[in-house]
């Protein structure tokens, strides 16, 4: 009964996102262009390196890693900071807070429809194309299962971070600046721009202590490992689970404290 309530929001989201077909087409075109740039960029980088593997990653590994990172970004990015920021500025947030669903959950589920469409129309095709083009560089086995579990945890961590940063908008009334800072930090430190394997050792140690590596690096590393050791899998997933719980508590707590501060102009 309770789930049905949320699934209604999912359904509405699916229908809404199917409305904008032209924009979806342009987005696919944009991603395609990006993939082309990434391919040639790393091809020439590896060509000038002269060796097959750098930092334990071959050209194919790097390509799969970066392409899937982009695809993951496509469906994990929820623009929650924008949603929260806008509804604070317009006063809409008052209506959302009055709904019989906690705001944090409402926002998540009303976006979940786009999850479904993005997953089916962006991620899945990209994944299949990559798997075909690289001639079985992606191993089809247990690692797929670990990947799925890992992605679910990553979505949760990413949403908590988004929500946490969005809550800051209650204080600053700046959306663009806050959002761009978050995006830059997450994309760089999670390995979505450059795989963490290429980071200098000292920097990698720092990054491993932060939650961002659990968003992109963890699922992609699990996917690219054809014969994962149980210890490594447990460590990665455990770390993710830990961060998911920690970030969840942090973002919920911060929201609760901030709500007392809220001032709404009009609405």
């Amino acid at each position, binding site marked *: 009964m309770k789930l049905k309530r949320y699934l209604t929001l999912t359904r509405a989201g699916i229908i809404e996102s199917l409305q904008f077909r032209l924009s979806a087409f342009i*987005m696919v075109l944009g991603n395609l262009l990006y993939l082309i740039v990434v391919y040639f960029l790393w091809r020439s980088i590896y060509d*000038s390196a002269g060796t097959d593997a750098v930092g334990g990653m071959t050209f194919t590994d790097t390509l799969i890693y970066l392409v899937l990172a982009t695809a993951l970004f496509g469906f994990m990015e929820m623009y929650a900071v924008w949603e929260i920021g806008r509804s604070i500025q317009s006063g809409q947030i008052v209506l959302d807070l009055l709904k019989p669903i906690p705001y944090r959950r409402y926002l998540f589920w009303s976006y979940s429809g786009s999850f479904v469409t993005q997953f089916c129309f962006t991620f899945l095709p990209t994944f299949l194309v990559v798997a075909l083009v690289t001639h079985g560089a992606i191993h089809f086995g247990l690692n797929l299962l670990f990947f799925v579990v890992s992605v679910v945890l990553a979505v949760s961590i990413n949403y908590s971070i988004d929500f946490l940063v969005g809550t800051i908008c209650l204080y600053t*009334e700046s959306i663009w600046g*806050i959002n761009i800072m978050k995006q830059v930090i997450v994309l760089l430190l999670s390995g979505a721009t450059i795989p963490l394997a290429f980071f200098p050792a000292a920097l990698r140690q720092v990054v491993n202590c932060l939650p961002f590596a659990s968003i992109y690096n963890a699922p992609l590393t699990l996917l690219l490992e054809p014969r994962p050791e149980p210890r490594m899998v447990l460590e990665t997933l455990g770390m993710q689970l830990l961060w998911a719980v920690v970030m969840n508590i942090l973002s919920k707590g911060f929201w609760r404290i901030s709500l007392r501060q809220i001032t709404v102009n009009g609405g």
Partner: protein
Amino acid sequence: MEHRSLRFYLRIYGRILAQDLKSKMSYRADFIISTIGMLFTNIAGFISFWILFGSFPSIGGWRYEEILFLYGFSLVSLTPVQCLFDNNWNLRSSVYSGDFIKYCFRPINLFFYYQSEVFDIKGLGQLAFGIGTLCYAWGKLGIAVTVLSVLRTIIFLCTASLIMVALQNAAAATCFWIQNSFYVLDFVTRFKDYARYPVTIFSPVFRFLFTFVMPIAFIAYYPSLVILRPDEVPLLSWLSPLFGIVFFYLSYRFWMFGAMRYSGTGS
């Protein structure tokens, strides 16, 4: 529409600019956060090159300093589009809501009036960072500082700016025909991220595409060749100022053509 002198337009621009800055200054926190956010994206680009060149010697035969030169060059040349033409991002919503009609009733050039309304100060942070990067790379590469080389740099920076401005104008103007032009604008804006790589890394087909169909290569690559590799400057580099002016003029005509078609929303 009667033609007025350049001095008249400069005076008007000063007046409008002053008003815009006053209204921006009433949101001081937003201004500061946005400027920092902008710097974050620039620094992140810098860091990713630094990480990359820690593991790899070159990108298709281009050294670290040369790539930094391209990066700095693209940042500086992107400043005008960021600072002076930022109102293009609002065009879609003002056309949609009907507010655009107010610009049509002013006795000055429509395009000028619309663009002059917003001056995006946070672009100045990017300008400073870009000049810093450019000077650093210039010094490291040991390029002689002569009147001619500085003059060339300035002329070719203007060229690159004109091309990016032209691309953005054209992208924004699509909203006179299609509803959601955000994705077109976003698509074109992502070009600037690809402008920082030398076009030689691409295969001939894409080199052609990025030169003549989507002129990304003119934003940094062809203009910088004049400074970076003065012995092997292709004809295209020398022609790029001409291309810049032609592209800009065409985009202006396209923008005005769309605006003249605009019939308001009836409100």
